[in-house]
């Protein structure tokens, strides 16, 4: 089995380059049929916003990295990209890379658990295109098992690592159930829009928007199916909201401390969370001194993000240990592929010789000795093969010198005239 793979990712290529080689699902299907024609017997094509990867079992030993790169570039009709923009992997290094990818430690955002789902989808597409064969079925099982272990046994994906998720994490430390809360987003620029979408996705009961340009707020409100207030009088409605997210481009405060004091009084001192993600800030930070008002600006959210990233980084050794365990399991399986058929073939060969010789000489023995002959000859064969069988089984667990093990196996095959691996692959 000749495993081969290329990867264009955030370490090797700019975002423009990554965008130019990004593949949609239908393009992946098309590319798989191209790859199947002459380059790969089986494999996988992964494409996300941060990476495009092709890995598989080469159709012949002549298939090179450049062949895979050219196949991708020709398919996307992109020129001017050299092979240095790709990472290249061979043999078991590909599996290690795939495992790191699934575990989320190869991602730009450490612990990104989206990638696990994306790889799962890639396996599914490949399977639907009959691109998953004997080896990749096993690789898929090992990858998915590893992904699940990483999620359940480590905290690599826990905690918010973007400002908008950090804001949600913070809000959820104050309120227990967002589906009973209402939120107002002030400013519908890019940041405000992301915040509004996050809040809606977290199930906020009532979401409203306001923006200096009313039409812009109205457009987003239509898309998100939310209420919209004119900017001139939004302060009159502040007390109706448990969460206020502000993200305008204003150079001055749009909400003073006294505005917030009036609001909290009208709310009968029910908790109010203010998330000010504007730079410069929109809300007077002095309002954090008002009882039951929780004010957070971009700096405090960044503290949460940094802390969570640090925690994720501290989980990497645990993840690497799991990867190493699963890689060992995979190597054992790979080695057993070579050893088990040889043991079986060796035993079959000796048994056929024994049976043939017994058959040829059976008439020389009395009827009561015939049965004894069967037993004795079988015992002899078992004793002869006991030591070689034990030694062969040791190869499965011995990853220290695989080349030497492979050589020993081929010597045994040569000596006894047995050839099994190709038959196994056919099956």
């Amino acid at each position: 089995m000749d495993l081969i793979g290329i990867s264009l990712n955030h370490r090797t290529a700019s975002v423009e380059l990554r965008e130019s080689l990004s593949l949609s699902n239908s393009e992946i299907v098309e590319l798989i049929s191209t790859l199947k024609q002459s380059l790969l017997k089986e494999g996988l094509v992964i494409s996300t916003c941060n990476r495009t990867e092709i890995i598989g079992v080469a159709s012949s030993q002549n298939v090179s990295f450049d062949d895979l790169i050219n196949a991708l570039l020709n398919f996307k009709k992109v020129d001017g990209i050299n092979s240095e923009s790709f990472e290249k992997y061979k043999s078991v290094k590909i599996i290690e890379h795939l495992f790191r990818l699934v575990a989320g430690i190869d991602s730009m955002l450490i612990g990104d658990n989206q990638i696990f789902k994306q790889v799962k989808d890639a396996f599914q597409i490949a399977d639907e295109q009959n691109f998953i064969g004997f080896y990749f079925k096993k690789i898929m099982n090992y990858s998915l098992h590893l992904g699940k272990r990483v999620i359940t046994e480590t905290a690599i994906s826990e905690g918010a690592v973007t400002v908008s998720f950090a804001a949600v994490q913070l809000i959820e430390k104050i309120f227990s159930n967002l589906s009973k809360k209402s939120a107002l987003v002030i400013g519908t620029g890019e940041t405000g829009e992301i915040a509004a979408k996050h809040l809606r996705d977290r199930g906020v009961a009532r979401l409203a928007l306001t923006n200096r340009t009313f039409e812009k707020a109205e457009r987003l409100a239509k898309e998100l199916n939310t209420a919209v207030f004119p900017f001139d009088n939004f302060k009159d409605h502040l007390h109706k909201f448990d969460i206020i997210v502000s993200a305008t481009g204003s150079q001055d405060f749009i909400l003073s401390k006294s505005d917030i004091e009036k609001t909290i009084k009208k709310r009968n001192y029910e908790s109010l969370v203010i998330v000010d993600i504007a730079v410069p800030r929109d809300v007077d930070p002095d309002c954090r001194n008002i009882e039951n008002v929780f004010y957070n600006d971009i700096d405090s959210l960044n503290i949460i993000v940094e802390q969570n990233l640090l925690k994720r980084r501290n989980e990497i050794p645990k993840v690497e240990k799991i990867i190493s365990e699963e890689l060992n399991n995979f190597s054992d399986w790979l080695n057993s592929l070579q050893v088990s058929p040889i043991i079986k073939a060796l035993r079959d060969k000796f048994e056929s010789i024994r049976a043939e010789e017994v058959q040829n000489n059976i008439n020389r023995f009395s009827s009561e000795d015939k049965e004894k002959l069967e037993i004795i000859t079988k015992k002899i064969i078992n004793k002869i093969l006991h030591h070689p069988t034990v030694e062969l089984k040791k190869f499965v667990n011995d990853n220290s010198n695989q080349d030497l093990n492979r050589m020993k196996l081929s010597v045994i095959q040569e000596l006894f005239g047995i050839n099994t691996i190709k038959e196994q692959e056919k099956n």
Partner: protein
Amino acid sequence: MISTIHLLNVLLPIFYFITFLIYLYDFQKEDKTLSNSKRLFLFITLCVHLLYIILRTIAFDHMPITNVFEIFTLLAFSISFSYFILELVTDIRGTGMFIIILSIAFQTVSSFFIKDLFFVREELRNNLLGTHVFSALLGYAGITISAVYGFLFLMLYNQLKQNKFGILFDRLPNLEILEKLCFYSAVIGFILLTIAIVIGVIWLPQSNLNFSYTDPKLLGTLAIWIIYGIGIVRKIYGNLKGRKLVIVSIIGFILAISSTIISNFLAKSFHSFY
């Protein structure tokens, strides 16, 4: 049996301490493998404690309610038992160490000073007294737990106000949940305390010649009952919430502790049994 009781008396603070350490370790490391085993260990500790209480009752022929150190062991049990039920019902597992530490304190004091009392006053063997004391103890356990959650609420509230995102931010439940736990524990404590007061006021004057309506313990308990009663009513009508609510709970708890100390150690009271 007596030697078993003595052995359990020594072992109980150790059991609570080990349970506390497991909860502490889990709080700091959030080790997923410990989240169930710590609950199991608390359960084992409670079983051992229950066995100890039963053995004492059989061996000394009275419920362990006849002096403050017997009551302390019951209080230690009631606090951890109430927390155990709360943890099972709410599945909020991150706050156990803050509660169990109180059981350690009560049980340790009890283990040091408790005596083998074979002879007690006859009225202390009465079943109604047992109900009175048990409901009072469970009531106190309720308001103790309420105060602990109130205290945790204040700590998290202050951290959030100061934009400090440390281990309390990571591990504690959110403010709304802490407030609810504080409130519901106080309500349960209040109901049980009401039962204790009603039994006490109806039955004690008949059975105890020294009974007095001006007894410091009775007045203290009444003051605590009124504070919690007002707090609960104001919360129901929406006039008391968040920080102010938990402060009321903490004040009630401090008063309860003060009342116990005054009535049992300083003042002359018919509630002092030794």
